[in-house]
């Protein structure tokens, strides 16, 4: 067995050294051909889910949030679980596009565009929940610092207001970053298209891009600045989301480990979601050579690492609960493991910590069906992590007299499904409307595209 591997040479990011025009053709193909019946079926399914959610939401608006399972100790439940979950999903995109860009990880090019798009869709989905979960959603405008004749102002000590800023900033920056990256590709599409309407649209949005050296120079600089700008946001958004819990005085929420623990968890679940979706996309659009198995393997490695961080956080929480000597704290954690919601806790631990350990094996890391299943399980586990944090903690707090068990209703589940419907509908529309892989960036990493020094 030959173990002399030269680690200084990076493996090819794009396999088979395709020609530049074939990359154009491959990536632009979905935009230039008529969608198949399968596409409509997929859109139909996700659209139905979206409709289900919309109907459930409509009922909730009409009758009140009483249609949900929330009760007196458990003021926050599935909608907040969904919020944190979707914000978490939104973390992979910016991490891939900004942080990995700064670290010059060239394997990111194949997946960056898609991951960024998913970030935006996930944050849009997530952003709905804080607004709809209020008792009077028609007054959600009160949550924004809008000047008004009553001289009423928001409360800047409330983490919910920090959320408003964190999430809206994140959405804006992610969107700008994504759009800037799209400009050269839009120009390529403008030059390729035969349709007059498309030409006008592409012309407007490509902002007069002519692939000139000067354009590229400005573009690279802007992209770099935006990447630098977006990088702290990856850390800040989920840190601030975790403050919703950490700033409170509820035992089980009031812990300092929450910010890193939430960020690690968010990247973990975000990667799992991106991995899942890309496995499907690369197959359908025959771009296995661009989004290669090597890329997927690298993502699995990230998941293994972040999964272990999350597992470490679980352990540390228990250690601190015991070590602090705070009986309220230790009760909460004991209750998580053995109490009413132990089932949720064990789903979380097995999905997030135990199953991901399979990624230690290279064969599994490179086995598409198995990694897909593990990716799904990770997201199930991460959803239940938020369930455990939000619901099991609230259901048993300080006074035993006010404890109460929470059960979700069908409406809760309908809205959860609706959130998946919204996300996937946006994803499905995206893959037919814009290039799912950055054409210009991929071209840059094909072997032979770079200046050679012989």
């Amino acid at each position: 067995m030959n173990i002399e591997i030269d680690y200084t040479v990076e493996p090819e990011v794009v396999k088979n050294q395709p020609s530049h025009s074939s990359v154009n053709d491959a990536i632009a193909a979905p935009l230039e051909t008529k969608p198949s019946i399968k596409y409509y079926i997929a859109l139909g399914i996700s659209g139905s889910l979206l409709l289900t959610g919309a109907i459930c939401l409509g009922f909730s608006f009409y009758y009140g949030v009483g249609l949900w399972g929330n009760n007196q100790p458990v003021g926050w439940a599935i909608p907040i679980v969904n919020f944190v979950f979707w914000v978490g999903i939104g973390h992979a995109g910016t991490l891939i596009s900004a942080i990995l860009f700064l670290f010059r990880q060239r394997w990111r090019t194949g997946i960056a565009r898609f991951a960024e798009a998913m970030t935006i869709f996930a944050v849009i989905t997530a952003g709905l929940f804080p607004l709809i979960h209020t008792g009077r959603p028609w007054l959600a405008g009160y949550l924004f610092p809008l000047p008004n004749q009553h001289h009423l102002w928001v409360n800047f000590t409330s983490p919910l207001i920090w959320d408003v800023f964190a999430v809206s900033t994140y959405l804006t920056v992610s969107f700008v970053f994504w759009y800037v990256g799209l400009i050269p590709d839009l120009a390529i599409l403008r030059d390729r298209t035969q349709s007059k309407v498309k030409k006008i649209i592409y012309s407007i949005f490509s902002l007069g891009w002519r692939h000139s050296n000067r354009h590229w120079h400005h573009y690279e600089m802007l992209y770099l600045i935006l990447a630098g700008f977006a990088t702290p946001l990856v850390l800040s958004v989920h840190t601030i989301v975790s403050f919703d819990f950490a700033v409170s005085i509820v035992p089980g929420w009031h812990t300092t480990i929450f910010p890193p623990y939430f960020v690690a968890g968010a990247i973990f679940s975000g990667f799992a979601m991106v991995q899942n979706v890309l496995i499907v996309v690369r197959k359908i659009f025959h771009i296995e050579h661009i989004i290669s198995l090597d890329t997927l393997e690298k993502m699995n490695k990230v998941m293994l690492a972040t999964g272990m961080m999350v597992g470490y956080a679980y352990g540390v929480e228990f250690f601190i609960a015991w070590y602090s000597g705070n009986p309220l704290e230790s009760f909460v954690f004991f209750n998580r493991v053995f109490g009413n919601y132990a089932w949720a806790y064990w789903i979380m631990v097995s999905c997030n910590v135990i199953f991901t350990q399979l990624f230690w094996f290279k064969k599994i890391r490179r086995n598409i069906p198995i990694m897909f299943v593990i990716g799904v399980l990770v997201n199930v586990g991460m959803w239940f992590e938020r369930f455990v944090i939000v619901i099991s903690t609230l259901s048993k707090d300080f006074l035993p007299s006010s404890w109460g068990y929470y059960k979700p209703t069908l409406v809760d589940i309908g809205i959860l499904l609706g959130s998946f419907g919204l996300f996937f509908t946006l994803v499905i529309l995206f893959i037919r409307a814009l290039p799912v892989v950055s054409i210009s960036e991929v071209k840059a990493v094909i072997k032979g595209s770079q200046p050679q020094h012989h």
Partner: protein
Amino acid sequence: MNDKKYWKYFENFNSEDRNLELKQQEFSEKVTEEFRIENLNTLSRRKFLALSTATLAITTTACNDYRDKGAIVPYNKKPENVLPGIANYYASTCTACSHRCGILIKTREGRPIKVDGNPDHPVSKGKICSVGQANILNLYSPERYKKPLKKSGGKFSEIEWQSAFNEILQIFKRANASGKEIALITNPIYSPSFFAVLNRLQQNYPTTKIYVYEYFGEYAKAIAWEKCYGTPNFADYDFSKAKVIVAIESNFLGNEGNFVRNVREFAQNRNVDNPQHFSRFYSFETDLTLTGANADYRIPLPASKHFGLLASVLNEIVTNHSHKLTSNFPKEQLLQFSRNFNLHQFAKENGINPSLLTQMIQELVANQGKSVIISGATLPVEIHILTNLLNEILGNNVLLRSKAQPLIGLNKLEDFGELVRKVNDDKIGLLVNFDVNPVFHFPKDLGFEMVFAKVPVVTFTESETETAMLSNFVIPISHNFESWGDWITSDGDYSTQQPVIEPLFGTYQKEDFILGIIEGQLIRDEYHKFIMSYWRSEIYPNVNPGVDFEVFWHSVLHDGVVNSPAALSSLSKLNYDVVKELTPSISSGGWLLLLKKSYNNGDGKYLNNGWLNELPHPITKVTWDNYVAISEPSAKALEVNNGDILEITRNGKKLEIPVFIVPGIPNNCLVIETGFGRKNAGVIGNGVGFDPMVLADFATVSNGYVFSDVKARQTGKHYELASTVEHHSLNDTFVKDLSKTRRIVQEGTVEEFLDGKFKIHRAEDLRSIIPEIKYSGVKWAMVIDMNKCIGCGDCVTACNVENNVPVVGKEQVLRGREMQWIRIDTYFSGSQNNPSISFQTMLCQHCDDAPCENVCPVVATNHSPDGLNQMVYNRCVGTRYCSNNCPFKVRRFNFYDYRDHFANGFFYQDSLKLMQNPEVTVRSRGVMEKCTFCVQRISEARQKATEDGRPLKGTDVKTACQEACPTEAIVFGDMHDKDSELYYWRNHKLGYYVLEELNVKPNVTYISRLRNKNSEDIS
């Protein structure tokens, strides 16, 4: 325009004055000329203003959704004594049960909105129970009958008052003419005027017979007294003088006897500043009652053993302590009976510590004449006789208070059997149910339903009842608050009842109708005139106040009570021959069934009252249902858990009822509360609970409600019971005694306290990163004395009424969404078979560093300069973050618009809109709410202080809960006022804050409960 000459006066006509012209034109020439929009060719300032004003006017009126809601009546001619925005209080008498407490009804703009006790009333002294307070909901109930109903062809149809009256008058006359009996069934008569009316009725219709009964009446006690003292009219004890109390299955603090007074007198001996004078209280009981929960020693004992207990205590006293007794009694005669009962053997057989019983006997003997032994209403005659014997030889009868007896007292229950027989023999011409519901009340084997087919029946009732449904005529009656009346208090004084509102639905008061029958003509307000003439001729001369009758009458109405010079009868000696016939009537072995009175439903009449249904049971916190309470081992033996349906059979009678496991109930005992399971109660009450009366025999209920020949088995069916708290087995070590280990409840014993060994745990060295806010002026705070709080829940009802707290219904309680702002937490600790129970009244603590405030994103909850944690409903978006962050979980969220959501918009019906307190916002859906420390009362007091030109004082304000608390356990006031009661208690050495370590700086102080038991007996 100038052709015609317009004139107003003759002077004008002839005058050539220019003024005339001006009058015609209204505007002077130049002004109007200049102001012609069409003449203005440019968009001048005026044109612009004119156009924009017109546009504004058109757009605003066009979008206006104003609908004409009929006549608007301003207070142009102000009704006498009514000032808009100022409440009026009227003294009256509560008729919700037979105890006739004095009440003050608060009215705003002519509508009653709150009921409190009348402080001038000698018996109730300003306090009433939950039922009395919630009675206001019955007044406004949209389900009250509005018109008389006549049944024809099995269906009811509304008829006019006059024709109903005429038809019924004819039936009266016919029955009288044919010599058939007119049977009038009613509750005990305590009203002198109505007694006179009934006498006149009997004069005019000599065949009239009055039948009196009371649901769950204390028949067995009455029989025992008849045997012991020759009179069925038993007296009450003065608990304020009792040093030692032994209760046998008695719920004298919860719902038996005149419990409002009992509670007050009991709490007088629970003053922590006088710990030497704490009474010592033993309770032997099967059920876990509110009374037992407040006992120093609660000994679970099946009702079948009470006879043995009392007999062996008697034996012990007579054998070993008779030389210490000062009373005279035939020792030999007693010993003849008691010598077979050995105390030590009894203790051994029943697993009771014998030294506890000897200690109790020593204390009883040492406190002769200062102790009370009291037996519960459910127990059979022989137990009451034994109780009387013990009290007599201990000389405790000096604590008996002579008591006014009803003018018409309870009939023997056999009389009702006789009544049914007479109907079958066609000897009855008319049956009148005078505001009673015998079809529901009597055990089914009496066959009372059968009589309805055989005689004409007239039922007087406010709203639907089982009896009304079977009657030929249903006559709607006015509510208590719409009626006149007079009453004898249990101290023998007179109290008055006056209407505070015109009958809402045009009904007549029931006495008016009877007077109409006597006089042959139905006249409104006739009873009012009758009462006045009766008082003028009968009571006024007796009282002899030395003023005009008119003056006297108005002052009586103002005060609500007047002292009567009439002497009450005193007690005769006990007839010791009763000892000869003492045999236990309850056999032991098998399942033992106890039926008990409900806490909140009265005789079932209040089952249709949402507030009372939702008031949690004081022990189990179950709402909207009754259940069979059993012990955990018994539940295991039957293989059932909470909510599983049990089938209980007795003599072929069957009842299916869900189980609820209650610690501290002896094994093989079943306890069910009555007054539930009505079929025709109304929209709210139908289907609430199960009626256990189906198990009782009519023949034996006068001997108590304990049944020993009972079988129980599980059915495999399940039923959801809505409890406001989670229940954990006391064997569950995970959650056991958390209330103690978390120092939510801190308790000690009197002994420890006197020895200085009992120290309250206070959090020390608390530091805050938040700068302390300095308050000046009045700062509100509350103290709750857990020694006095008995956990009755009167404060909860008072708060509900005062603050427009909505009823949410069972399905929402099951979801954990009850809305009450104040709650009584009940904590069990110790062992499953003999737990110790602690109550804690929990409400918003108005923390100085309130954790709810800093997390609200819109500052909807914030702090007032006088230390209140306040809610701005209009600003609240409903994120519920505040509730999550509240360590006391006292915030309540409107998950729905509950007025709409509950029972299909029940509370949006017109009459109920009148019930709301106009000073308190009715909250919409999606809004958080919580205790405000009755901020509306604070504002009112502040306004009054400003008017009077003096600073606001802490004592100017009484919160609704404080006002209602029957034991004065709640103190409210200004923590900066060093002379105030509040300041004293807030800095008391037994005071502590709940969850003090969190350093949220609560403003509600709890005074530790001291139990008067030996420290080594603390489990």
